[in-house]
């Protein structure tokens, strides 16, 4: 198990190294001088442009040799210096991102975990109940094919705008300041529900279909047939099938992380929910490149950490890895 996790850690370190290198390389690969491009696109007053230009020049350090620029980039990164935001000048990018993280986690963790559990349960049930299968399967396909932002828009329009049941923007009402009280928590949950529900529903469709197909496959497998011929109760066979079908679903969760992150970004934009997705939108609208690059690094880091947590869970759940019988 140690070897297995070690191998995974190596891949993740390489991935992180690769991502940081891309982050450094891309502005320098683009045609022309990145500083001139940035400043000219912002259409500022001449004096402001000059200030910004000198700031960018200093930040990019284009006068240094390339290898030194690269090392300095890593140095700044390890010190937690991601530059200064242009949108909310002069706040540091790191602070903006750290402020957004709690909202991301508050939205994503419950949506991912609950949809995964519910999808697996319903999918497993659909594999043996005909009428459920006939309704869950088409519904599941429609849900996984739905772009996250569109479901979010539909929910916001129908339940928020037309029915007036839920607010459609922000993490809490404009009138109140964040503090610890029942009123605030209720307000927070009330604003949280629609973005959560739209993320939950899209993911749920995918997990339900995946589980249903896996269970059907497992019930056809030799060990199920063997158990059946021994006269084992169907409940027991289904339990084994469920356990075996769980493993690919855990791997699937790791593979889906990238898509989930993209979905969360889009959903936060629809609901103006103050997580990283909202930061990205503001960074795009305000040509705030350091903020954009900071969000990029933050997403990569988050996905890598989540991958590693899933690997640990997988290693704990899969007896073959637990006992060190296989490396991957």
């Amino acid at each position, binding site marked *: 198990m140690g070897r297995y996790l070690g191998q995974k850690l190596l891949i993740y370190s390489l991935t992180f190294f690769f991502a940081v290198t891309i982050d450094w390389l*891309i502005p320098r690969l683009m045609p022309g001088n990145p500083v001139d491009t940035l400043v000219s696109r912002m259409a500022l007053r001449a004096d402001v442009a000059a200030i910004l230009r000198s700031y960018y020049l200093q930040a990019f350090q284009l006068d240094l040799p390339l290898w030194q620029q690269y090392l300095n980039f890593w140095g700044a990164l390890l010190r937690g210096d991601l530059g200064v935001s242009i949108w909310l000048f002069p706040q540091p990018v790191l602070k903006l991102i750290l402020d957004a993280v709690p909202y991301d986690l508050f939205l994503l963790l419950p949506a991912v975990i609950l949809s995964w559990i519910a999808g697996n349960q319903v999918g497993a049930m659909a594999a043996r109940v005909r009428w459920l299968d006939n309704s869950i399967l088409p519904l599941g396909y429609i849900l*996984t*094919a739905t772009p996250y932002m569109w*479901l979010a828009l539909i929910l916001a329009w129908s339940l928020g705008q037309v029915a007036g049941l839920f607010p459609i923007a922000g993490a809490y009402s404009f009138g109140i300041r964040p503090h610890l009280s029942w009123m605030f928590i209720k307000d927070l949950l009330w604003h949280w529900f629609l973005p959560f529900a739209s993320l939950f529903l899209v993911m749920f469709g995918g997990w339900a279909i995946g589980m249903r197909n896996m269970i059907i496959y497992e019930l056809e497998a030799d060990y199920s047939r063997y158990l059946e011929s021994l006269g084992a109760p169907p409940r027991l066979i289904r339990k084994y099938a469920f356990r075996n079908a769980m493993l690919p679903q855990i791997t699937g969760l790791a593979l889906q992380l990238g898509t989930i992150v993209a979905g969360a*970004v889009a959903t936060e934009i629809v609901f103006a929910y103050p997580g990283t997705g909202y930061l990205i939108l503001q960074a795009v609208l305000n040509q705030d490149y350091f903020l954009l690059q900071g969000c990029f690094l933050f997403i990569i880091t988050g996905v890598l950490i989540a991958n590693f947590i899933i690997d640990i869970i997988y290693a704990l759940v899969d007896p073959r890895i637990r006992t060190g019988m296989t490396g991957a």
Partner: protein
Amino acid sequence: MGAWYELIYFAFRNVKLRIGLTILLFFVLAAIFAPLFARYDPNAYVGPAAHPPSPEHWFGTTTFGQDVYSQFAHGLRLTLIVGLLGGSIGTLIGILIGLISGYRGGLLDEILNMITNIVLILPTLAILIIIAAYLTVRGFLVQSVFIGLTAWPWAARAIRAQTLSLRAREFVDLARMSGRSSMKIVLTEIAPSMMSYLFMVFILQFGGAILNAATLDFIGLGPTQAFSLGLMMNNAVLWAALELGMWWWLIPPGAAITAIVGALYVMNVGLDEVFNPKLREL
């Protein structure tokens, strides 16, 4: 020839494939012909602002009085083109890397596998965000290429696994004994044996590229000059379609994407049943 007739026979008997294909064809035809019926420039301010559907403007107008139908017709075309291009590029790279890595094995396989694993973990959207942000002028071609460049890893992995199992079969051994070059064996023996699988990979890549492009456009990092369904949703959100309850602007673009991608997924399941005799319902 007999095998082909049988496949076509089962293809037309398969309900899922028929439904999926019908919906897809409908939207492909709409993408080709709908812009011809658009009476207005999608960018021009041609009517009263925020007006619901009317005989004059079939899908209503935007907050600024642009014709939603014209935007939808042109957006649908671009969305399908980007999906097709991005999906093709992703599939081709996946096939190339999967076949080479699975057939050659050894050190090359190790290296390609490592690259595949790294790109597989990297969230596509994050990379696309950073690239799109620094490109001053973005065309749909650039977008398709980058979507394809980041979407191939799972395809490569799956095709590699298939190649590995095919490589050990007798007919491939026979071909190798006959002294044919590796290149020829891969192209004439291995690739044709998994043609049906490759086709299904392409369909999933097609759907994935459409969804990726829509998300990117929605964030505001899509093509800078053209109209797409994702960009329509981006504009709708930025210009308060939600607050003003302009459902005619919010619903069509996403509904079209859902229908197209859903049709592709259902087609994929149908094709699986057609190609795999075990799954056929007789």
